[in-house]
């Protein structure tokens, strides 16, 4: 079980949180997603087959790229 926290500058409202949560939850292997408007962060818990590359790719696709 891995946990990553990304800073996602594009988060601006609760809808963004909802979008990130619903899109990432569809990625196989992702166990939980908690995004937060105030801190503009998302905490993702995942297992194989998901990995950071896949997650970052999805985030970029939905226009919420993770900041490095």
């Amino acid at each position, binding site marked *: 079980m891995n946990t990553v926290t990304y800073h996602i500058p594009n988060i601006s*409202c609760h*809808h*963004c949180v*909802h*979008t990130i949560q*619903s899109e990432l939850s569809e990625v196989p292997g992702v166990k*939980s997603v908690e995004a937060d408007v105030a801190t503009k962060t998302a905490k993702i818990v995942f297992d194989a087959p998901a990995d950071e590359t896949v997650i970052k790719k999805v985030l970029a696709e*939905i226009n*919420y790229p993770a900041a490095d």
Partner: protein
Amino acid sequence: MTDTKQVVLPVTGMTCANCVATIERNLKKVNGVTTANVNLSSERAVVEFNPQLTDLKSIMARVEKAGYGIATGQAEFYLRDTGDQTDLNRLASKLKEMDGVLDVQTNLVTHRVDIKYIPTLINQSDLRTRIYKSGFSLLETKVEDEDAEQHARQREIQQQLHYLMVGLIFTVPLFIFSMARDFNLLPHQIAHSSWANILMGLLASPVQFYVGWQYYVGAYKAIRNRSANMDVLIALGSSAAYFYSIPIALGILEGHVYFETAAMIITLIKVGKYLEARAKGHTSEAIKKLVSLRPKNAHVLRDGNEIDVPVDEVRVGDIIFVHPGEKIPVDGIVIEGHSTVDEAMLTGESMPVDKAIGSNVFGATINKMGFLKVEATKVGKDTALAQIIRLVEEAQGSKAPIQKIADQVSAVFVPIVILIALITFLIWFFIVPNFHPGMSEILSTAIIRMVAVLVIACPCAMGLATPTAVMVGTGRGAELGILIKSGEALERAGKATTIVFDKTGTITKGQPKVTDVIVLNPEMDENRILQLCGSLEKGSEHPLGEAIVAEATERSLSLINPDRFNAIAGVGVEGEVDGFYIIIANRLGVQISDSEIHQYQSIIDQLEQEAKTVVYVNINGKLHAIFAIADTIKPNAEKTVTELKKMGLKVAMITGDNQKVASVIANKIGIDFVFAEILPGEKAAQVKALQEKGEIVGMVGDGVNDAPALAQADVGIAIGSGTDVAIAAAPIVLIREDISSVVTAIRLSRKTLQTIKQNLFWAFFYNIILIPAAALGYLNPMLAAGAMAFSSVFVVSNSLRLRKIPLN
């Protein structure tokens, strides 16, 4: 074929440019959508799709799944007359055919048609036109005019009374004359004069064609639309008796005239209709009561003066003065003064509620004692009262699934009855052994038995069975602070086998509270320790810290600003207050030796046994106190669980908390089934698991956090939403915080369902027994008409009993 269709949808809830991208992406994921363009500023989505692959519903569902809404319009129309349920079903299906119409609810009792539609696709005048084209006429009302229904009702009663009076004026002499002749009470020269039959015909004609005209019109409309309703039966039945009598009166045929039968059928059914119209008025009494609560005037501060304005002119942000004993005109927030307010009319709670600066107050509630200055926050359609009225009205117009049986039967009922009537005629005319002296006797017997079959059959009792009960049931609920949003919810709640409670916020208050303060060092007393700890925790956002602050505040201890404050995540806090160095933490962080803590192990064990969280207080390096903090159980929880179990329901509790805390609470209040350590997202799955075991699940939760579980349950019950009834995503909303409302809601639902079943049983049974009786000649057509009229009145009266039925 690659036909595409374009629709423009009004999207709500978009706040940023990201939203636009999200919705477009989601829409394009729908199979069949070719293009999707969303505009943030106009809040429109233009979608092109292939109607063979997808439809409006799936597109809308996708937008909603993405977390946004589609703005829908709500039109309400009042029909001038409704005919019966078959007519209304026909109207509803005609309307539903239209693009952009999402839902249609019709109500036989209130004559109301509610249409949910997408305003960018269709407008109210299109709807109006379609209603007229379907053979209905509308009462022209302003949409806002909530008295329209009452006027419509009053007019209906007046009109029925008028027809009834005219009917009686002609029918009573006709009946007396006819009976007197049949019993040989009239002189021979009158009884058998050639004009006696003609006189009877003259008396019957106004009844047949003036009082009974409505039935001809109704029958014509129904037949033109290829359906058949009650009007057809009455028109056929009375016409058969009437027209058969004409050649006899004119001396062309031999035999007995049946003018009095024709007139009696129409007049008796009018008696029934009149009684029914009056009784139906009572079914919407609860709503009328709510509507009548609306305040008329408000004292508003304008240009520095207090002036009286009609409540419609109060704007958000206005400063309103409310004197003792007055109604609060709109929803608002108290900005000056304090008082107690009677909110019983909205919540069903009889105890007045304290209000001080910052409290929310609601329109139509009554300020009991002090003077209040209120800033208006919600006016007009947005007030809690207006929302409650709207929800109840919508619920009253909705159909319970059980009504489908009645709808299916009544759709084929009338044609079948006509068929039975024809068979009756043929059998009596051709087959029954000919022992009558003359041909005319045989003909009249056959006709009269056919007429009896036609008029005894009563589809209207079936049509009224469900909606009247739903109306009275939901209305009664509203009076008790129980908002049942649909007939379906009512039915499901009545059938529930398991009630699942969410723990936090539903069974417990959801706010941890300091339950025990154990002082371990005589240097300082309890209040001093709490004062210091409360001061240190002042800035804390942790629920345990807040509990300590709350306890200190409750004891009116003055809190001071800490000189230093530091929160250590997962451990506790430390800092300096009033020259003391304080640590408030769990065992790991409190920096007290194990051996010292060990002395108090039995106390600690005891507290932990009770599922309380133990917090240690270190002041200047010494252990000074132990706090036990726990969520407290709501007052009526135990009683509620006991009552539910007595009603034969299984009671379960679901919580994210650990097994220990959960079982302590469950044991305390008698809950048998506990699902602990369930993550918020998994609550719905747990509900589903229960459903798969065959349980009909009622889920009780706070309506916001538990929304998925409430939605998964057969019936979701949101509790304590206060007066913010619209946001709670549950089909049943309990306005009061009091958990025992759950018992009342289930009881009310069961009673209503029971009433519906009684009504349906009565309506079906009545037809099944009496149609054969009429066919076999055991029922005089006049008696049949009386019996038919009575059946509807019985059904409505039975539903009205729900107003008074005890629920405690």
